[in-house]
């Protein structure tokens, strides 16, 4: 990779917001004086993703990881903010050119049981993206499907099987093959292994890494399992209540975490290694609802290092403290 490409991110995300608005019904509005509620799933995320790297995105359930991933691949329209892919703002892509974008950017879903149509054979499922790529010849498609299946560790004879005939790990392989079929550059992997057994999980992670090397793929790897994130990522972003609170190179983040939330998250990982076990920081309470985000710092309700009044009043800025290690906390300013 030359110097110019390194500096130019593949995906550039600026102040991305995705809010879901729930309007009250007519009766609720007139009789009960209900107001509309706004669920701020993603609430201002800045992120650069470079060619060929894997960004890990961690956070607890309900912190907006999945919404963020789906917004990037344009499955949700962002409320505000900009996503630029290779210098082109996604908003400016015309409907007729959307296909090119959708082929360059793919997503692997979390649940291999619900993301495959149970009434279609593997051949049907994998034909759709190939047709979209403009391969109209049936025999050519079948050859391609055979190759794809081989690549993800299944056999070409599986082409006429239905999803229910496969185990969870095999289904995830089909999902990966479907994403690969259009020769994408950037893949959002939304918790691709969390529904799988440990021994199978390792197979899928290794497969994803091999594919990355082979096709020079860029991944946004969403997961809640920190040891998986550590294993696959070059950089890790920690998300809390719709915002990235800390981002750094993987080893830097795991050895020198700054944000109290990251610290607590890291200390909560159970490990098999007895020597590695540290004093656990037990966070109190749970994540507040994204409908009613606390004022000031959004982590203040659970923070064990809360400084002073400033945490209540001012939202911390996302600042770079060197080497691309960024953190949003009043302790570091």
């Amino acid at each position, binding site marked *: 990779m030359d110097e110019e490409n390194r500096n130019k991110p593949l995906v550039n995300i600026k102040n991305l917001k995705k809010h879901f608005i729930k309007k009250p019904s007519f009766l609720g509005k007139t009789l009960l004086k209900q107001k509309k509620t706004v669920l701020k799933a993603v609430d201002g995320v800045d992120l650069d993703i470079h060619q060929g790297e894997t960004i890990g995105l961690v956070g607890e*359930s309900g912190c907006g990881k999945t919404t963020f991933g789906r917004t990037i691949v344009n499955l949700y329209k962002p409320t505000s903010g900009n996503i630029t892919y290779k210098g082109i703002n996604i908003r400016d892509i015309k409907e007729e050119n959307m296909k090119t974008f959708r082929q360059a950017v793919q997503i692997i879903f979390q649940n291999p049981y619900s993301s495959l149509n149970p009434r279609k054979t593997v051949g049907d499922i994998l034909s759709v993206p190939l047709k979209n790529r403009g391969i109209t010849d049936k025999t050519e498609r079948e050859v391609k499907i055979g190759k794809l299946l081989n690549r993800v560790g299944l056999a070409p004879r599986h082409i006429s099987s239905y999803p229910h005939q496969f*185990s969870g790990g095999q289904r995830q392989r089909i999902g990966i093959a479907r994403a690969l079929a259009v020769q994408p550059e950037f893949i959002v992997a939304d918790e691709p292994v969390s529904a799988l*057994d440990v*021994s199978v999980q390792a197979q899928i992670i290794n497969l994803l890494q091999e594919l990355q090397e082979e096709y020079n793929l860029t991944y946004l790897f969403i997961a809640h399992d920190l040891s998986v994130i550590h*294993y696959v990522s070059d950089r890790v972003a920690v998300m809390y209540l719709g915002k990235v609170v800390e981002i750094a190179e993987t080893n830097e983040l795991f*050895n020198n975490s700054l944000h109290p939330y990251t610290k607590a998250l890291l200390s909560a990982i159970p490990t098999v*290694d*007895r020597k590695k076990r540290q004093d656990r920081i037990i966070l109190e309470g749970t994540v507040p609802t994204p409908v009613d985000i606390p004022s000031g710092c959004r982590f203040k309700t659970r923070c064990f290092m809360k400084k002073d009044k400033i945490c209540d009043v001012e939202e911390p800025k996302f600042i770079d403290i060197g080497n691309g290690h960024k953190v949003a906390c009043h302790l570091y300013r």
Partner: protein
Amino acid sequence: MLNVKNLKTIFPTDRGIVKAVDGVDFSLKHGEIVGLVGESGSGKSMTMLSILRLVPPPGRVDNGEIIFEGKNLGDASPREMMRIRGKEIAMIFQDPMTTLNPVFKIGEQIRESMRIHGLFKENEVFFRDLFKKKQKAKEYNRAIELMKEVGIPAPHLRYNDYPHQFSGGMQQRALIAIALACEPKLLLADEPTTALDVTIQAQILELLKKVNKIHRTSIILVTHDLAVAAEFCHEIAVMYAGKIVERGPVDKVIENPKHPYTKGLLASIPKITKVKKKIKAIPGNVPDLAGLDKTGCAFFDRCDEVVPRCKEVEIPMEEVRPGEFVRCIHYTSKGVRASG
């Protein structure tokens, strides 16, 4: 205190008999925590349900003894079992959202088992209504006390909440409160933290540890997460395809695993170290119990130390060192491991 011997639970299906639990032996002392580790379909949950005699039909316990405090639960009448369930042995299920009844208040659900087991029942039959009020008040106080103990904030207010008003972690706490209501001697926890986030998981495990320490409650923790078991338990039993393949004190099993499956499981967990080592996956999938061949080791097709005899002979559980058991051909007394 609990002694399970050669437990077998079977499900007759149209594809033949499925041996969900196939000859499980283990024992548990007072105040001890045992971890039952394995992948989905390995028979962990079925073992728990068999102990409580709650195996859903057409499944049934086919063989084996479950001796709890000197009493064989296999011989107990349904009435006796009802007295044991919830009072002597309590269970925490995996998914709190589906375990709690959505139409009853949390507090009432905590009170329920005290009422059923007559924890505060007065002996007098006359003027029962008079005593009922007193009993109810006692139960209410105990429920509040329990909610406080498991860390539900503002218990007086939360008593009247319904399950959907609780978060996942809080629901799990409520379940633990229900399980603890009658101060059981044995707690069966079936994947209590699987549905929860890491920070909440840490809270719940801490709480269970506290319960174990204060009440000296024995706990059987069922989990697929070897790391959770490693931190939490005194002893670990690793299950594969209905059989325990390795059992022993936690440090021995984790630091010096003997069975190839345990080794494989440990190698497939990514570890957080400075230098990333490639993780080694176990090839293949968890076997389908219905299609499983009867004789030999069920792990043979995924094992990297397989020898032809694995499939030919029934492999017994062997005590390698006092307290450490392995079910592998390389450790049977006749063929003690020749290499490495």
